[in-house]
């Protein structure tokens, strides 16, 4: 059976679940546990990657360099990964910092229709002889043809593989499988899949992706990650082993890592709650989960209404500022309705009197 490369972004995507506040002890302990389990890549950083600590997305407790350096010290048999989205991450300010901090593997991301934003960054890293993958985010928002076109662009820039991210947890299995199969045909490089669990399909989708020819799969410990959570790493490893795939990962050690994550990283185990289901249906980036819930509460509006409104506006990753605008508009609409109702109540008795 096929050799499957498991990439573990627990310490990157998981940062979304704790408002980017992972601390030194947490990074150190989990990195050591993942190293013992021999996952292929441990990806570390702010939830939106290098250079993304901001008022827009959330300020990280530690700098990119600090997070990478701490993990680096714990990794001997496993590669250290960094993620960056051009528009947030720049070459000189951010990629250089990650190179200096000892990152081995880079994943350069863009919204699924905008691969050309990654051209300079991918080539820059390849020129520095780094292992580089392209990442297409929010892949449910592009047609299969368009995805192939964008993946081929990343291949031409020098990417050694392309990761399809179901950033909203919105993919139904057959849609995903069709896209993965076409991408495998359309490119000469490895194809990967990164799932989210809004519709409880993350593990099933990951297995389907492998069946369709994907050779890289992302999973996080206990699903620790944005929104309803990611594909659960320990379940993924167990299922792939049952299916006869070789991940090179020690089952007991990865289960230990997951237990450690639950004890030390996770404030609340990710679950597919009502808001998470709506987020998936609306096709909104998983990282919006925490800010949408907070802002909806502060503005006194229904977070589900906010998610559907964001979905109608087709927001992509990184547009968190729109949450405020949408919540305010919903609040104003509710207020207007209340006033109208009040007017109505005042008018009715007058009508009765006449």
């Amino acid at each position, binding site marked *: 059976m096929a050799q499957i490369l498991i990439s573990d972004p627990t310490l990157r995507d998981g940062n979304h679940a704790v408002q980017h506040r992972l601390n030194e002890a947490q990074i150190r302990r989990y990195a050591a546990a993942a190293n013992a389990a021999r996952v292929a890549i441990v990806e570390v950083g702010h939830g939106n990657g290098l250079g993304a600590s*901001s*008022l*827009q997305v959330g300020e990280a407790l530690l700098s990119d360099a600090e997070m990478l350096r701490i993990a680096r010290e714990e990794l001997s048999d496993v590669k250290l990964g960094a993620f960056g989205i*051009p*528009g*947030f991450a*720049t*070459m*000189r300010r951010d990629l250089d910092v990650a190179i200096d901090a000892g990152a081995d593997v880079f994943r350069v991301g863009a*919204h699924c*229709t*905008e691969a*050309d*934003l990654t*051209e*300079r960054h991918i080539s820059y890293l390849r020129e520095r002889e780094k292992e580089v993958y392209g990442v297409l985010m929010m892949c449910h*928002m592009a047609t299969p043809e368009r995805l192939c076109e964008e993946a081929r662009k990343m291949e031409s820039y020098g990417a050694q593989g392309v990761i399809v991210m179901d950033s909203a947890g919105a993919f139904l299995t057959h849609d995903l499988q069709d896209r993965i199969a076409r991408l495998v045909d359309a490119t000469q490089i490895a194809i990967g899949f990164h799932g989210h669990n809004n519709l409880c399909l993350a593990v099933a989708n990951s297995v389907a992706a492998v069946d369709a020819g994907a050779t890289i799969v992302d999973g996080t410990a206990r699903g620790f990650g944005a929104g309803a959570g990611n594909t659960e790493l320990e379940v993924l490893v167990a299922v792939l082993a049952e299916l006869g795939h070789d991940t090179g990962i020690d089952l007991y050690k990865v289960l230990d890592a997951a237990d450690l994550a639950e004890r030390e990283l996770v404030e609340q185990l990710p679950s597919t709650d009502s808001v998470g289901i709506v987020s998936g249906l609306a096709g909104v980036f998983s990282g919006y989960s925490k800010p949408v819930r*907070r*802002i909806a509460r*502060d503005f006194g509006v229904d977070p589900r209404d906010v998610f559907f409104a964001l979905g109608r*506006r*087709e*927001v*992509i990753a*990184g*547009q968190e*500022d*729109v949450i*405020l*605008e949408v919540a*305010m508009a919903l609040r104003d609409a509710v207020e207007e309705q209340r006033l109208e109702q009040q007017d109505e109540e005042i008018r009715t008795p007058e009508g009765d009197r006449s």
Partner: protein
Amino acid sequence: MEASAVSRTSPPPRPHLRLASADGAGALRVGIIGTGNIGTDLLLKVQRSPLLECELFAGRNSRSAGIRKARELGVATSDRSIAPFVEEPERFDLVFDATSAIDAKRHYELLEPLGIPVIDLTPAKLGKLCIPALNLSDCVGQPNLCMVTCGGQAAVPLARCVVETQPQVDYVEIVSTSASRSVGPATRINIDEYLATTEAAVAGFCGVPKAKTILIVNPSSPPIKMQNTVFAKADEVDLPALRAAVEEMVGRIQRYVPGYRLVMAPLHEHGRIAMTVQISGAGDYLPEYAGNLDIITCAAVAAAEENARVLLGGSAATGA
């Protein structure tokens, strides 16, 4: 350290700007180099200005859509790029460069010794940063004006309102979101330079120790209008003062960018100030959603008109 406040004091001596049209023509004779989307949109705005007259519209391809448009309008065109400007410098009071950052640098090396001032719409960052709402009067008689970036034109004036009314603020952030179809290949390949130039403008005009810029390219259909949010970190905020300053600033920008609109007035929540503006283009040559391109051509025309007003003196200003 702060860029000087908007003032109406008399401009500094201007060795570079010769007034070729001092014979009473009543308009600055300008050239445009670059016949792409930005150059062509700029041409339509120049044509509407009573203070500017397009002497030549030059590019490299005589069959480009921009050149065809210029011919329809009866504007002289050339496909010889920078050459006609170098051969007959006396025909031009000012040249707009709407090519690319690399070409703009080469062009300026040729135009500078000839004493032709340049308004540069590329992010080459060769001359003085110009944001008309903030430093128009300092932008007269400059050999080279850099029109920053679209996000800089849209958001830096708002950031300035924040630091002027909330002196304790030491971190400002700008998030610009544009429609995918309005973000051309040059911006995409130079995305890091775009961010750096915008951040340099925030530092220069606002004097904050720390600034960050984020650029998002959104592909939705129909295309979204350009949107910019300014954030600042602040625990305590004088919101009435900020709102008044922003209202005044929005009015000032609307005088030269009619589609500039505040969609979320300044608010304070979760330890941060936030406000959002949206820009609809005038729909001159580019579609209405391309407010990101419109704002930079509008700003370039405003800068050129200010030069015209000062140079042509009272007669032009009064339209007499």
